[in-house]
């Protein structure tokens, strides 16, 4: 197990380096970064420009610049924001928790809901319920994430006035007169959006896997041994079906986290995604690259956790 984790960690190094290279060269995508910065912000001060030159060593050759940046990065020195000049790592630190909270709750909830639905759908293949579930989930895949958020806000915040439309905490007043309930009230709509998006994919995957596994010999053998239907499906089949879903989750984590800016923008959520949109809009390179790298590391850590879960679920992996 320990060796497996070490191997996975080593395996992540090239991925991390690859992404850091892409992130770094974003600055050079359209020529001299300083020109681009000036385009994005015409009234930038010479002071800031000088600070940038020092931080990135813009007078040195590009590979050296990259190495300087990478070394700084590894020492948690992300540079300073072009706007306000506050250290990037400090800014990110204050936003990261909100994003993690939102994503984690949504992923867990999406799994808890999609498993029973997917299983039931597979057990009754081609039944009315199954057809309804598959077509609704295709509908779900077709829906723009952010638009679902807009609709929910229009209905539940603007028309009905039941839930807050923006933010993570009630700044002017507390929803439902309680700080905990207030936090939950703010979570409901964004979590609904994120869960709905993941749900559709998850259900389709679990259904497809379950269909295959329910036809396998070991399920027939489990039935032949007189195990109850519940045990056969929820113990013997489920654990096998969940593996590919978890693999998929690992692969799509990047995309899920990439969806963060959209949801966070719609709900004005004070997280990394929301700030990233602002930073990218202003071409605040230190902040953009900092958030990029933090999200990358978050994704890699999550992938590692998922890999470990997978080993626990399917013991055959350990040998590979």
């Amino acid at each position, binding site marked *: 197990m320990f060796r497996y984790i070490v191997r996975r960690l080593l395996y992540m190094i090239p991925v991390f380096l690859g992404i850091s290279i892409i992130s770094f060269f974003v600055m050079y995508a359209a020529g001299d970064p300083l020109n681009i910065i000036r385009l994005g912000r015409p009234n930038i001060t010479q002071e800031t420009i000088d600070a940038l030159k020092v931080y990135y060593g813009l007078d040195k050759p590009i590979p050296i610049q990259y190495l300087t940046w990478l070394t700084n990065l590894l020492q948690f020195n992300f540079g300073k924001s072009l706007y306000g000049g506050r250290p990037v790592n400090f800014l990110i630190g204050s936003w990261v928790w909100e994003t993690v909270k939102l994503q984690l709750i949504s992923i867990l909830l999406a799994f808890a809901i999609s498993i029973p639905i997917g299983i039931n759908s597979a057990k009754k293949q081609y039944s009315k319920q199954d057809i309804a579930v598959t077509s609704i989930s295709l509908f779900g895949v077709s829906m723009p994430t952010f638009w679902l958020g807009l609709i929910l806000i229009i209905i539940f915040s603007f028309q009905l006035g039941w839930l807050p439309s923006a933010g993570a905490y009630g700044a002017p007043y507390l929803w439902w007169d309680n700080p905990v309930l207030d936090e939950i009230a703010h979570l409901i709509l964004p979590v609904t959006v994120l869960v709905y998006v993941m749900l559709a994919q998850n259900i389709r995957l679990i259904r497809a896997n379950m269909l295959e596994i329910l036809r396998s*010999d*070991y399920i027939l*053998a489990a039935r*032949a*041994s*007189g*195990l109850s239907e519940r045990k056969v499906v929820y113990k013997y089949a489920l654990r096998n079906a969940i593996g590919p879903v978890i693999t998929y989750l690992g692969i799509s984590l990047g995309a899920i986290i990439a969806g963060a800016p959209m949801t966070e923008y719609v709900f004005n959520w004070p997280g990394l995604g929301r700030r990233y949109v602002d930073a990218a809009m202003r071409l605040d390179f230190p902040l953009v690259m900092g958030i990029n790298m933090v999200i990358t590391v978050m994704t890699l850590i999550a992938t590692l956790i998922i890999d470990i879960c997978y080993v626990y679920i*399917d*013991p055959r992996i350990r040998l590979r």
Partner: protein
Amino acid sequence: MAETLLNIEGLKTHFFTEAGIVKAVDGISFNLKKGESLGLVGESGSGKTVTALSVLRIVPKPGKITDGKIEFNDENLLKKTEKEMQKIRGSKIAIIFQDPSSSLNPVYTVGTQLRDVIMAHQTVSKTEARKKTIEILEVVGLPDAETRMREYPHQFSGGMKQRVAIARALACEPTLLFADEPTTNLDVTIQAQVLNLLNDLKKKLGMSLVMITHDMGIIAEMTTRIVVLYAGRVCEIAETHDLFERPRHPYTEALLAAVPRLDMRKTLRVIPGNIPNLIEPPSGCRFHPRCNYAKQTCKEDIPVLEEIESGHFVACHEWQNITLKGERSH
């Protein structure tokens, strides 16, 4: 004569596929005495496995038992509720499948899988179930059972896996065991070990055995009576030595002729043609397109299973007019 344990009458199990109705089992009747070893023989696709699955009532979709009677201890299994069947499966009637690597769940330890079966049928505590698991694994000859039960199926060799599968089937000491080609996927040396084990256990536990195979060699060794199936129907039923010496059905003769033998110099005969399409099976006797002795009646009339000597049944229009070669006469 001993009591009848299992009596199957006119069993029909059909698969309702998009291409049409596959009549995998189409009116099979035979019985089994207590303590007997019965062989169920036929090519693949003859309905051997589906018969076994029908008795356990675990025919996979889109299959369905459409007609017939399956009496086990004088109770019709087809009238039982699903709950009642669950109690019978694994405790009274058990089955061993052909491929142990696919019939054991890859994500649970061997011990867990055995314990689940024991706990499904007996009200025992977890520690007691664990003890029983170790016991039964030792009975099937798994060395070092206490540590090995914590391992996963992929950590076992093929022969050891099949021993585990046998242990799972015998965990609750069933009175009837179906062994569905239990040695086909094993090495030859392991085959003999597994067959010996099955024989020993059968004697020890006093259960009845239905051996499903297409291997006439195994059948000769393991059984006392044989049911020959072809395309979902019974061709011939007889005591093993009787069937081997004096087969009365052309298909049985062909099966026997296809067995390689070292002690005799003969060319191996292959049964011409393929197993028929079970969606639109041949009219009359289903074997007639491949039969050397087929006459016009064979194409038109379905032969009935008739008792030609005590305990020897055959379903052939021509049995009186033909002399067939048995094992010894080659």
